[in-house]
């Protein structure tokens, strides 16, 4: 094997191994500090009781804090995770369904919701509420 060829092998092998190694050490450093349970499992836990109350199929609405921008990534993620938690129920990001899940981060009052046409059916804690849209009955 000529020095030129040996150099080529060492170059390719070293670049590859160091690239794998860099990710390995980054992840090894982060892993012990990773939250347990993970964020998705924790988020899902908030919907455990609600999921048990829902029928095996159907459509339910979803709403969050009223002033949340439509492009808010966290809000979008929470909506997607709500669908993930409640499948096979279809969760549509609209309050125009008869039953609506509220996922609020700021305090909302039953009176405030009633003024907007929603009757609170049950509160599950952590800002999760099952609402009935009285206009969509």
């Amino acid at each position, binding site marked *: 094997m000529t020095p030129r060829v040996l150099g*080529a092998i060492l170059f*390719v092998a070293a670049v*590859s191994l160091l690239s*794998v190694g860099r990710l*390995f050490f980054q992840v090894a450093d982060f892993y012990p500090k990773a939250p347990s349970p993970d964020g998705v499992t924790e988020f899902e836990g908030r919907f455990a009781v609600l999921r048990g109350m829902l029928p095996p*199929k159907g459509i339910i609405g979803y709403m969050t804090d009223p002033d949340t921008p439509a492009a808010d990534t966290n809000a979008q993620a929470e909506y997607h*995770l709500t669908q993930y938690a409640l499948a096979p129920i279809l969760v549509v990001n609209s309050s125009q369904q008869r039953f609506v899940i509220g996922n609020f981060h700021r305090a909302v009052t039953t009176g405030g919701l009633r003024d907007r046409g929603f009757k609170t059916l049950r509160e599950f804690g952590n800002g999760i509420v099952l609402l009935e849209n009285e206009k969509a009955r």
Partner: protein
Amino acid sequence: MGAWFLLLFLIALGFLGARAVWPAPRVWSAADPLRLAAAPAFGFGIASGLFFVLRILLHLEPAVVIASVFAALAVAGAVAWSRARTAAPDASAPSGSAPVWLWILLGVGVLMAFLTYLMLHGAAPHGEWDAWSIWNLRARFLFRAQEFVSPFSSAIEWTHPDYPLLIPSVIALLWHAAGGESTRIVGAVGLLFLVSAVAAPFYAVRLLRGSGLAALCALSILGASSLVRIGASLYADVPLAAFIVIAGSFLVYGLEVESAGMGPVFLTGLAAGFAAWTKNEGLLFCLSLAAAHLFSVSAVSDVPRRMRTLFPLLAGMAAVIALAGYFKIRLAPANDLVNASNASIIGVRIADSSRYWVTFWAFVSESLTFGSILVPPVIVFSAWLALVRLRALLSGAALLPIVTVAVQLAGYFAIYVAAPNDLDWQLNTSLPRLLLHVWPLSVTGIFLISKDIFPVPPQPERRAARSK
């Protein structure tokens, strides 16, 4: 436990299915490691097809689907056993050897990649965004639903209800076997696809070019650490990359080793079809592979054989694309890229030169930073080829992976130019993953055209001396 047993049976189904189509003698044969490397992917593909037909279309109980997997395993085993009686041995690998230190480096790389996958999966067992908003969500729909209309409803268009079902249906089937949802099963499926994406090209290059180049090929594929990161994110991109490299590897093997018959070529078509059943980009891959198969020839004398192998290739693809086509036509809403477009809008986008410019620079930029590799892969492989040189006899078959990748990338480029969504957003969110689809096949192509550089021990002379 049921799911873990079923997982093993699916690997056995993939292996025996490959041996039924591409037979070998009953003893362990030279190409069996290649069949075994691709076995999880083939097993998952076959099982997902059974799940789709029996569970989603015919609404049969999950137990019937599981029973059908065992029936398929029995049939594949019987056919493989029967065909093994008359099968010729697989062509053996070239006898060149790799230095021990290269095997040690590969072992260290594989171990670090494996541990990284386990840690990433442990930290995010449900995967990342696309996993829980598309792939595992769809698996939950299939597992939990008592009807199969909701998962494909346009009311949840953001979940991309038109995306194919290979991954969700295999996971749903394994959850049925487990009797509940398990993130460990999902992680194991992801890991097996990752293993196939590295092991299949390793064994293909080993059979065709020898151990040394194969070890470097596998290490280079792992060098794109995003392969492990995105694999552990439980996206469908690594399974797609696995099917793409399996298809490419089997096709080069089938074309270079004529004694293997048409079996590897049919399996190529099957793997390409499964790619289309995994992600929509797989449909483009079927076209890219078929085009490369026809045009990647080094002489006019190659053309008749390419025409002969075209039929098994297309037959393998058609078997699976029929499923995907039925799903697209009868169950799924239109794809967002197609739905949001019409001919006039596409015409406007195609005539907009700035879109070409933006897309071109995004491809250039991504090729320099791709995969979190320490040195841009373009530089690494340019230096590699400059130092070791190309093979003296460069066959059209050896060039086929590179030609396929070039056609696939040209297709991705065209789709970006015509895509309806915001171009910058589309490029930022998807281009790294799209390049990952063709990464293992690109690396395999590089090592297939590289000169043999590892010393070959003088075995023929020794044999001749013994016979004297």
